């Protein structure tokens, strides 16, 4: 069954979009990532114009994150205080990111830059997570208790704050910086940024894996909601019909994902996420390295309406 999208001005198969939303929703619930890094390229692939895909993707991530966060709230695995600090940094970061994005657009190589960003960040994060979680899994197999994070430079900074849910007493500077950085990526890459934030929370802030997923989702809601509004107002590229299709699939998927996530061990969860991140990275890298079958591409020059 085909559905005509009023803003994108293309007709798409409704079930295909529902399926895409569902798949991304499952990942979102399992790993606490918004799934944008997967959703946005997939939307390009089915023929949605990139500007619409990025904007609508952000809106869809809001829905699946709300759904996921509620499931996590019930299990008390959201650090609201930490989330608030991250959001503060995130909104400032998003504004900075928009400025950088527009500057690159004026230079004319924004597509390439975004793809390179994906390859670099997904590659680094995926690689590190994979190595670390394989090591952790080996250790836990041998029966040795997983080592608690040692206190590094992060703990010697001023402005300390107590985060009870995470069991942390650390400076607010690192979480603010993480939020800022992720907010910037949100604006530039059109993603929720969970794939950066989850590892940053675990390895940099030393938060327990249990609360990381819920807290990450909580932060993502605010930043993606702000992004959706910015796109709706400045570019008018949010397609509600596409969003509704994606989020019907997405919210259902997120619920299943959260349940699956509970069943798996933290290390297994991390290995799976790492593999997924590496896979997307490899696909994007190949696209850059291999000769494309069609060297030419068309984009309409939209006159300001």
């Amino acid at each position, binding site marked *: 069954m085909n559905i005509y999208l009023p803003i994108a001005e293309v007709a798409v198969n409704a079930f295909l979009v529902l399926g895409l939303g569902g798949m991304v929703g499952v990942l979102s619930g399992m790993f606490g990532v918004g799934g944008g890094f997967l959703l946005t390229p997939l939307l390009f692939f089915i023929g949605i114009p990139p500007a619409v895909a990025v904007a609508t993707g952000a809106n869809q991530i809001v829905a*699946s994150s709300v759904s996921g966060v509620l499931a996590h709230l019930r299990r008390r695995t959201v650090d609201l205080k930490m989330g608030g600090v991250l959001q503060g940094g995130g909104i400032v970061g998003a504004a900075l990111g928009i400025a950088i994005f527009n500057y690159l657009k004026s230079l004319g190589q924004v597509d390439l830059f975004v793809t390179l960003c994906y390859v670099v960040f997904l590659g680094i994060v995926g690689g590190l997570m994979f190595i670390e979680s394989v090591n952790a899994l080996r250790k836990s197999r041998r029966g040795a208790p997983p080592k608690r994070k040692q206190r590094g430079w992060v703990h010697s900074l001023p402005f300390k704050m107590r985060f009870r849910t995470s069991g942390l007493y650390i400076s607010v500077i690192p979480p603010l910086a993480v939020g800022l950085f992720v907010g910037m990526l949100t604006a530039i890459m059109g993603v929720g940024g969970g794939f950066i934030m989850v590892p940053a929370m675990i390895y940099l802030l030393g938060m327990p894996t249990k609360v990381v997923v819920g807290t990450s989702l909580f932060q993502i809601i605010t930043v993606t909601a702000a992004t959706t*509004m910015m796109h709706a107002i400045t570019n008018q590229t949010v397609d509600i019909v596409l969003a509704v299709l994606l989020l019907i699939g997405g919210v259902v998927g997120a619920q299943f994902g959260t349940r699956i996530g509970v069943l798996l061990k933290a290390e297994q969860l991390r290995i799976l996420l790492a593999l997924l991140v590496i896979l997307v990275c490899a696909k994007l890298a190949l696209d850059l390295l291999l000769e*494309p079958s069609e060297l030419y591409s068309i984009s309409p020059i939209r006159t300001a309406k």
Partner: protein
Amino acid sequence: MGSMDRFRMISGLAVLILSLWWALFGARTASAEEVVLGLSHDRVAITATFDGSEILIFGAVKRETPISATAPLEVIVTISGPKEPVMVRRKERSMGIWVNTDSVAVDSAPSFYAVATSAPFSEVLSDTEDLRHKVSIRRAIRSVGSTLEGAQAFKEALMRIREENGFYSLQENVVSLDEQTLFRTALQMPADLIEGQYETRIFLTRDGTVVSQYETVIEVNKVGLERFLFNLSREQPPLYGLLALIIAVLSGWGAAAIFQLLRNG
């Protein structure tokens, strides 16, 4: 008073010249063979489940004189979507990766363009006539002032990509013509239509020369919910953005609540 007389004289002269001009050239432009056209529909409504549309174009050739025996009559039908400027970019390998390097702006390319003919295109229309009336796909795209060497390759790429996606098509021998008088064809319009006025032209040709031409417009419009959402997004962007967010939050919350109920119940 004198100026008034002069005005009368000049206007009288103008009327005379106009009627003379009409007698001389008007007779030539009003051709012996004219198109009487019918369309299965002159409006395409894009609804939520819009899945393309087939337009039946049929008509008759009206003539005062008997059919001239010189060359057979042929018919060309074209439908053109709204024209817009497009940017065509080409990738090149640079430092190991494929990067967009050169780009050419095409001034005006129709978003959709279909040509249907009653015989092979080269037999139906001569190149000079094609140049004058801009009938073929190549001629329907206007690109002037592209300074880059080899800009032609970019235009060809544009045509190739749009033909592969079904937006441009040349369909030869699909207009059926009976007794050189009644003609009929069906043109398929894809699901990915954009809104606008679709200019529809019918050419009657003999020996590669256009003997008569008829133009009409097919309106393609979004209707209902599609129309409402599109207008809202353009006229009330903050409201539209909020609506999108509210839908997102409510559906996220709704799904969580339903699953909770299912688990408990």
